[in-house]
C-alpha cells in the first residue's frame, strides 16, 4: 500500500471487509444448510461498508499538493546564496559619510540578516502548515485502511466453539492521524541563521502542539455483526480525530496570525530615503574623496 491510499484503495478495502464478513457469517452461522442464502442476506446487510471507507477520500489532497510544490519553490528561492550579498553591500558603502549613509547602514543593511531569517522561517511555517494539512488527509486514509485490516483479521479469526461462545477480538483505533501536527512541530525546520527569531509555532524548537484526543474505542467483538459495529465505531473515531487534528493545526496557526505584524521591524525592511541629488550632504563620500 502506498503512503496515500486512493479512493479506489479505500473502496477495495471496504469490499474486502464485506467479503470477510460474509465468509465469517457463513462459517460461523448455524449449520442448517443454505449457506448461499445466509451469505446473500449477510451481503445485503453489509453492503454499505465500502462507502464508510470512501468517506475518507472526500478530502482530496491533489490541489494542496500543487500549492505545496509552489511553496517549496518559494523556500528554495529564499535559500539562494545571493541573499547573503548584503554583506557585500555593507562593505561597499562602509566608508560613506553623512546621516543618510549612517541610517542606511544601521536601519537597512545591518538588520537585514535577522529580517531575512524571520521571513524564511515564516515561509517554512506556511510550508509546514500545508504539509500538515496534506499529511492529516493521508494519515486519516491510512488509519481507515488499518482499521479495515484489523476488522478483516478479526473476522477471519472468528470461530464458533461447541459452547456457542465466540472468540473475543479487540479492535483499536490506529490513530496516526491524531499526531500529525504535533509530529511536524516536533521536527522544526531551521534555516537562515536566525538572529531575531519570531516564534512561529510549527518551526520553532520547543513549541508545543498537542495531539487530537482519541475517543476510547474498540473492545471485544464476538460475532461478525459486533466486529463490523466495532469497525464502524473505530472509523467514526478516525473521522473525528481527523476533524480534531485539523482544528489543532488551525489553533496553532491562529496564534501565529496573532503574532504577525507587517510593521514589525524584525520582519519588514524599513523604507529608507537616501536623499535626492539636492540633499547630497546627507550621503557623502569619505573625507579623502572629497577633494
Amino acid at each position, binding site marked *: 500500500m502506498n503512503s496515500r491510499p486512493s479512493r479506489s484503495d479505500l473502496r477495495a478495502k471496504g469490499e474486502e471487509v464485506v467479503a470477510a464478513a460474509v465468509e465469517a457469517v457463513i462459517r460461523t452461522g448455524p449449520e442448517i444448510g443454505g449457506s448461499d442464502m445466509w451469505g446473500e442476506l449477510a451481503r445485503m446487510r453489509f453492503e454499505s461498508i465500502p462507502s464508510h471507507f470512501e468517506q475518507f477520500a472526500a478530502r482530496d489532497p491533489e490541489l494542496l499538493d500543487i500549492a505545496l510544490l509552489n511553496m517549496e519553490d518559494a523556500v*528554495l528561492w529564499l535559500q539562494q546564496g545571493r541573499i547573503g550579498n548584503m554583506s557585500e553591500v555593507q562593505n561597499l558603502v562602509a566608508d560613506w559619510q553623512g546621516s543618510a549613509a549612517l541610517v542606511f547602514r544601521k536601519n537597512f543593511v545591518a538588520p537585514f540578516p535577522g529580517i531575512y531569517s524571520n521571513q524564511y522561517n515564516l515561509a517554512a511555517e506556511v510550508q509546514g502548515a500545508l504539509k500538515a494539512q496534506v499529511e492529516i488527509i493521508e494519515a486519516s486514509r491510512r488509519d481507515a485502511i488499518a482499521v479495515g485490516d484489523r476488522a478483516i483479521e478479526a473476522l477471519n479469526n472468528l470461530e464458533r466453539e461447541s459452547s456457542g461462545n465466540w472468540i473475543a477480538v479487540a479492535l483499536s483505533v490506529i490513530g496516526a492521524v491524531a499526531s500529525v501536527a504535533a509530529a511536524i512541530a516536533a521536527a522544526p525546520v531551521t534555516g537562515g541563521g536566525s538572529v531575531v527569531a519570531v516564534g512561529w509555532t510549527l518551526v520553532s524548537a520547543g513549541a508545543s502542539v498537542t495531539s487530537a484526543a482519541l475517543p476510547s474505542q474498540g473492545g471485544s467483538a464476538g460475532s461478525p455483526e459486533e466486529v463490523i459495529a466495532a469497525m464502524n465505531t473505530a472509523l467514526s473515531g478516525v473521522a473525528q480525530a481527523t476533524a480534531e487534528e485539523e482544528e489543532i493545526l488551525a489553533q496553532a496557526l491562529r496564534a501565529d*496570525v496573532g503574532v504577525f505584524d507587517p510593521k514589525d521591524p524584525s520582519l519588514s525592511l524599513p523604507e529608507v530615503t*537616501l536623499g535626492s541629488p539636492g540633499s547630497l550632504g546627507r550621503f557623502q563620500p569619505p573625507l579623502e574623496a572629497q577633494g
Partner: protein
Amino acid sequence: MTNERLTVELEKLWQAGAVYLPEIAVPYAKASRSVNNTSWRDEEAFAHTELQVSVVNDYWPKVEVVEVQSPAMEPILQLRNALQWLLADTATKLVTAGEALLQIGEAYAEEDSQTAEAFEKQWAHYQEEQPSLAGPPDVPEVKYPGSTVEVDDSWFYGEEVPKREQPTEPE
C-alpha cells in the same frame, strides 16, 4: 584632475546599487511569485463535501451534501498572504534602495566631469572583463497577494496548473 578615490567610491556605490541589491531582490521577487501560485484554487483545495442530516418539521429526515472547509484554511491563507506581502515588499524596497544609491552616485559624478569620465571608462572595462559586475540583473515583477496566477496548460492532458518557476542554478 581625476579624483581617483572618488572614482573608486562611485564604483563601489554603483556595484551596491546596480548589482548586489538587485541580485538580492531577484530571489525575493521569484519567491513572491511562487507563493502567489499557491493561491490558485486555494479555497477549493481546503474544501470537501459531507452528508449533513437534519430533521424537518420534527419528523422528516433531510440529507444534504454540504461543502465544508478545513478550519486550518483561514489561518494558513492569512499567513501565506502575510508572507507574500513581506516578500514582495522586501524585493521592492531592495530595488528602490539600489536605485537611490545609483542616483546619488550619478549626482556626484555630474559634479565632477573628469571623475565621471574615469568612472565610465572603468565601467566599460568591467563590462568587458567582469560582466557579472557590469549591470543590473533583471528583477522579475513582484506579486503581491491577490495577483493573477499565470497558468501552464501543457501539464497533464491540457489541464491547467500554475506556471512554476524553480531555482535552477546551484548556489
